[in-house]
């Protein structure tokens, strides 16, 4: 039998070992359900009232979706802005909503902020907008304009020139905050020139939701891989099965490759499952519209001249690459530390640390490197992290360099893991 055939047979056994553990099925089931549930949870946690009638988040989303679909294909120019503004101005400022949420985007951090007002009290920072027939049919555009100008009052007054100028101002502020060099600014200015202005409004609610969910999905993936793959190598040491394995003919390099391939297959399959589970739930709820729309429809602060569909593919590709990296790191630690509990402790500690800790833009190198970590990279606001990496005179974006770095780190760790595994024990 040739070695490829042996590796293939061993690969089957190694996959069997992973899937024979009850823990694998339990956590896989929980994470799959969660990935599908997230979009529904978004809607179930909020309620509205229109003209004294309570409506659910889901019903509100359906109304928004219908309105947005009707507006799809309209150029966001003076005409549309005037239509929207006059529709809102025809209705006096009366608040008949129990709870209404609107949000803005902070261009410097990318954080979305929700302003929730209730009991009919007007807030100086946020104006409640009456939702009724005509006005509501323009609410998707209003929300979108508010995202750009960061102020709902201004959104009801802005004209086309001012709108796109506000966006440019926001970009300049972001570039300034991110300490971009002249060359980087020139790069992005060039990219901006490829984006058609004025924008054409396209509804892309499903993909917008998917961009938001990639953050929790990423942590779920790490947790899932940490639990299921942390014992791929350690269990052989712990139960001393390694003595049998390492003394057998193909127990070294072929078995290592089989274990590694099985772990990678599991990790990538988990990424597929979580991403597709979430994407199908988002599409089921919001629809698959807007795949060909410009990314700026969903993320107006991004200067990347790509379609929503391409951005989804980039995100999906990164998610799969990250799953490979998580799998290799987990298996390397499993071989190195020889204790699955220690592996899980390190990975969950890393996950929690990067959730709570951030390095400000002012520490450019440290912050840029930190934001390349797989737990900090897969966030929608990374689409407007415009700091570039110069490699032999060519500028690479954060996603491009992360891809390359993850592959290189993965190969390096796989090689180091093999060295550890095949080395004859000295203890």
């Amino acid at each position, binding site marked *: *039998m040739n070695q490829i055939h*042996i590796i293939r*047979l*061993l690969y089957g*056994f190694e996959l*069997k*070992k992973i899937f*024979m*553990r009850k823990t694998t099925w339990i956590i896989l089931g929980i994470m799959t359900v969660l990935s599908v549930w997230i979009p529904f949870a978004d809607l179930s946690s909020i309620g509205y009232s229109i003209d004294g009638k309570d409506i659910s988040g889901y019903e509100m989303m359906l109304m928004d979706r219908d309105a947005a679909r009707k507006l799809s294909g309209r150029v966001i120019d003076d005409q549309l802005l005037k239509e929207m503004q006059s529709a809102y101005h025809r209705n006096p400022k009366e608040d008949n909503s129990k709870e209404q949420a609107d949000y803005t985007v902070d261009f410097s951090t990318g954080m979305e902020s929700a302003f929730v007002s209730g009991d009919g009290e007007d807030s100086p920072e946020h104006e409640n907008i009456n939702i009724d027939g005509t006005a509501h049919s323009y609410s998707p555009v209003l929300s979108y304009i508010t995202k750009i100008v960061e102020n709902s009052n201004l959104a009801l007054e802005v004209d086309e020139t001012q709108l796109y100028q506000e966006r440019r101002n926001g970009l300049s502020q972001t570039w300034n905050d991110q300490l971009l060099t002249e060359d980087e600014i020139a790069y992005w200015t060039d990219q901006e020139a490829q984006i058609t202005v004025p924008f054409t409004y396209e509804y892309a609610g499903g993909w917008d939701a998917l961009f938001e969910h990639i953050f929790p999905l990423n942590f779920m993936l790490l947790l899932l891989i940490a639990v299921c793959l942390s014992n791929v190598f350690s269990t052989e040491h*712990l*139960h*001393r*099965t*390694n*003595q*049998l*394995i*390492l*003394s*057998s*003919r*193909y*127990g*070294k390099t072929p*078995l290592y490759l089989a274990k590694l391939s099985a772990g990678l297959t599991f990790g990538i399959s988990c990424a597929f499952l979580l991403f597709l589970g979430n994407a199908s739930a988002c599409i089921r709820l919001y629809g698959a519209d807007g795949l060909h729309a410009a990314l700026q429809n969903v993320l107006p602060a991004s200067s990347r001249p790509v379609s929503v569909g391409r951005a989804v593919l980039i995100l999906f590709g990164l998610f799969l690459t990250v799953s490979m990296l998580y799998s290799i790191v987990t298996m390397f630690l499993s071989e190195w530390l020889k204790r699955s509990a220690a592996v899980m402790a390190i990975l969950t500690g890393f996950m929690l640390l990067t959730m709570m800790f951030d390095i400000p833009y002012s520490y450019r190198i440290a912050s840029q490197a930190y934001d390349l970590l797989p737990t900090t990279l897969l966030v929608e606001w990374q689409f407007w992290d415009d700091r570039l990496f110069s490699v032999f005179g060519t500028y690479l974006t954060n996603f491009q360099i992360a891809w390359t770095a993850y592959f290189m780190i993965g190969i390096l760790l796989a090689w180091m893991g093999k060295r550890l595994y095949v080395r*004859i*024990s*000295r*203890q």
Partner: protein
Amino acid sequence: MELIIDHVSKQYQNKIAADNISLKLMKGIYGLLGENGAGKTTLMRMICGVLKPDSGTIAMDGLDVATEEYRSHLGYLPQNFGYYPEFTGMDFLLYMSVLKGMPKTQAKRRIQELLELVSLQDVSRKKIKTYSGGMKQRLGIAQALLNRPQLLVLDEPTAGLDPKERVRFRNMIDRLGDESIVLLSTHIVSDIEHIADVVLMMQGGKLIYQGEWDSEKDLEDFYLQNISTQNISDKKTS
């Protein structure tokens, strides 16, 4: 066929587990006797390529212990090791047969033979976690014999076996000595006194006796005598 162990030493921090051991093993059964901690397991693990000696070499017919070819002739039953509890006995033997590079049809035939030999054919489809200690040990013996090894290393193979199984195991090993080098370690003298062609005795990491054994003689007396003599000599030296 010969296994040459040449000036092999191994030290763990302050303890010398194998002290400059040299041996030449040919076909036959070698009984390795020694108290717990004498260095038997360390020597066996080095012979199986699981543990790296600090110095010295181990080779069989010119093949170094670290090579794949060497391992292809090896069958090893470690002293204490775990199984995959969710695997069935059959799964485990199939897995081991792949690791040993056996073609599938040949492996299946051999597995059936061995399951019968170790009386596990009725439970081969049951998960290993349901097996008793003795059944696990018999499964371990079966995996060691899968590839008809030229070098069979058995570390305390009778641990966990009942008296009937012990006798059956001894008879099985007796036959294997005609075709292979069988190195069998134990601290129970009766396990080897009737089947070993050569007796090796270890104490404190040293090989204190090596010689052919006449099964008419009382090995236990001889062993105890040697061990106590060595203890006195060690005390005098220190």
